[in-house]
């Protein structure tokens, strides 16, 4: 390089450097200079308090705690409990749900044994999980029509669980004894009868398929129960879409205890898509082969209707053969930390609908949510929720 070229560099390069750091970037660096970190201690105990009120109802609330503590290397204790409070609503003023209480021993990096009340989860769908054979373990306080709420707040099942992990998958066995014959509605009862009314077992395996395909396999059974095989799969499609499906089947009568004793399937097919604008959309098709036919469902009314709905509720299964489920979640909607969610359930048998819209402003350790939900359809239809508003305040610790 010639001397005049160096001279040129001497003049030009510092100017170029000045231009490179744009004002916005310099402002960002100045802001970062003054940033103060507020470290959060790693606690084994976390919880949530909620106070809420439905339109036309009384204030109610719940307190939930979760303890996940290492007792010694390789040995954990897990406790999850929820106390629902409805002091003015009539009925029990409080209902306690001992959701989980178990010890977990990690015998080696790949082998684990758990014993106690456990809430195992299987499946990949959001609205309904055919692989979730423990779905009827007992929900002591139903507070929302969102299926995720019923799944999250139910009782676990007392069981022994062993799991062998290997690269890309695992195999496991779950054994649950019978502990009591009937549910115990007493407010502070651990309610072993709801969760462990009969002996049950489950074998499960998961594996990585080709490409982005991931699968779960399951075989379940128990005292007085038919064998129930099941499979779930998920797949990534492009950068923003996941596709998933799950199905199980067993030989049984319909939910009302009638109909032919034959193979009946539970199935879900769904997809989830996320936009660059922070909006996630999910759509699912749900099939319940144990539900009444469309014609039989259409003829139900009065006491028969109530009895059948109770049977479906106890089995934690949809009351009709086919539904559509839509879910939307929009983060930073209109302003930072404000989330808008929408949930729509549409019954294909009677064309009834349930809709729930929510706005949720989130803080560091609190949240305030306003929701509106309503049902639309004929009397004795699937979704009969009256229109109502709900205000809820949450505090996390």
């Amino acid at each position, binding site marked *: *390089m010639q001397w005049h070229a*160096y001279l040129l*560099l*001497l003049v030009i*390069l510092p100017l*170029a*450097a000045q231009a*490179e750091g744009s004002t*916005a970037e310099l402002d*960002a*660096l100045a*802001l*970062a200079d003054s*940033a103060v*970190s507020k470290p*959060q201690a*790693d606690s084994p105990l*976390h919880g*949530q308090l909620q106070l809420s009120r439905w339109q036309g109802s009384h204030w109610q609330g719940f307190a*939930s705690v*979760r303890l*996940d503590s*290492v007792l010694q290397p390789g040995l*954990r204790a897990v406790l999850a409990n929820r106390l629902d409070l409805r002091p003015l609503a009539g009925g029990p003023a409080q209902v306690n749900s001992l959701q989980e209480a178990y010890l977990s021993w990690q015998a080696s*990096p*790949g082998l*684990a044994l758990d014993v106690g009340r456990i809430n*195992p*989860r299987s499946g*990949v769908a959001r609205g309904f999980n055919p692989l979730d054979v423990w779905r009827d373990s007992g929900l002591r306080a139903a507070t929302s029509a969102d299926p995720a709420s019923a799944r*999250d707040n139910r009782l676990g099942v007392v069981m022994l669980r062993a*799991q062998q*992990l290997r*690269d*890309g998958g*695992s195999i*496991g066995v779950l054994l649950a004894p019978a502990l009591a014959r009937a549910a115990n509605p007493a407010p502070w009862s651990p309610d072993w009868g709801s969760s462990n009314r009969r002996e049950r077992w489950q074998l499960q395996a998961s594996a990585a398929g080709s490409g*982005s395909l*991931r699968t779960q396999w399951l075989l379940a059974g128990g005292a007085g129960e038919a064998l129930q095989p099941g499979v779930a799969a*998920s797949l*990534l499609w492009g*950068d*923003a879409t*996941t596709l*998933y499906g799950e199905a199980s089947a067993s030989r049984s009568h319909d939910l009302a205890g009638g109909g032919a004793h034959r193979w009946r399937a539970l199935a879900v097919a769904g997809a*989830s*898509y*996320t*936009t*660059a604008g*922070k909006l*996630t959309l999910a759509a699912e098709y749900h099939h319940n082969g144990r539900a009444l036919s469309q014609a039989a469902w259409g003829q139900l009314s009065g006491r028969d209707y109530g009895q059948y709905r109770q049977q479906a509720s106890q089995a934690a299964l949809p009351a009709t053969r086919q539904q559509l489920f839509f879910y939307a979640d929009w983060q930073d909607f209109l302003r*930072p*930390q404000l989330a808008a969610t929408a949930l729509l359930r549409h019954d294909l048998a009677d064309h009834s609908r349930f809709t729930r819209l929510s706005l949720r402003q989130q*803080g*560091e*350790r609190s*949240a305030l949510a306003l929701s509106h939900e309503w049902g639309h359809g004929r009397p004795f239809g699937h979704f009969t929720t009256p229109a109502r508003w709900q205000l809820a305040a949450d505090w*996390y*610790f």
Partner: protein
Amino acid sequence: MRNALFTLLLAAGLAQAAPDAQQLLAASDAIRNPGQSFSLDNTLIEYRNGREQGQTQLQIYARPASDSGQYRNLIRFLAPLRDAGKLMLKNGNELWFYDPASKASVRISPQQRLLGQAANGDVMTVNLARDYRARLDGEEIIQDGERQARASYRLVLQASHDDVTYPRITLWVDAANSRPIKGQFYSDSGRLLKTAYYRRFQLQLGVQRPSETVIIDGLDPGWITVMRTGNLAARDIPEAWLQRDYLPRFRVE
């Protein structure tokens, strides 16, 4: 005059034989990441238009995959408290999100992952040389994160496969020691998604590494994230940890 002389010498140095872009990128990767399994603490402070919006605190466990050499990450949330205990598993484009309250492991797409602050960890724990072809695009004196003029190589990185978060990156590395100075991360359509300044270099695991990254959103320059890393430690991350079925069991001892 001393500054002028320094600049002159620097320019002369830059004028010599052009270095290999891919080697520069690999050297820069080695400064951001140790070439082994490790854990670190990550605090992200988010600002909108100068106002702090909140802090996210993460623990990141990373293990290089035996086949691709790319890091497989297990990310644990400590704060905000509403997210405490949640986990995210990243194994290439296979992503799972676990919530201890629901016990659910939900599969998410790469796009969905970008919604959360955990995605900003990518500007740290990614082996760029494994996934990108680097081209030396020029030699430049730019302002670094400490607002000092620094002689640098400007590298243009083009993704060599589809399983990456950012198809194209422009990266400036220090001409003297290959330290990363600044990165610009682009979408498929060429849109600038984020700009990152690597700064506050400290001795960690025997190498001067950036302890702070300032991330500026490409669409909204008023959206700024300050990411601070600490407690970088070599750590054995068992293979069994890095799969969906382990997420309900994960607990740091």
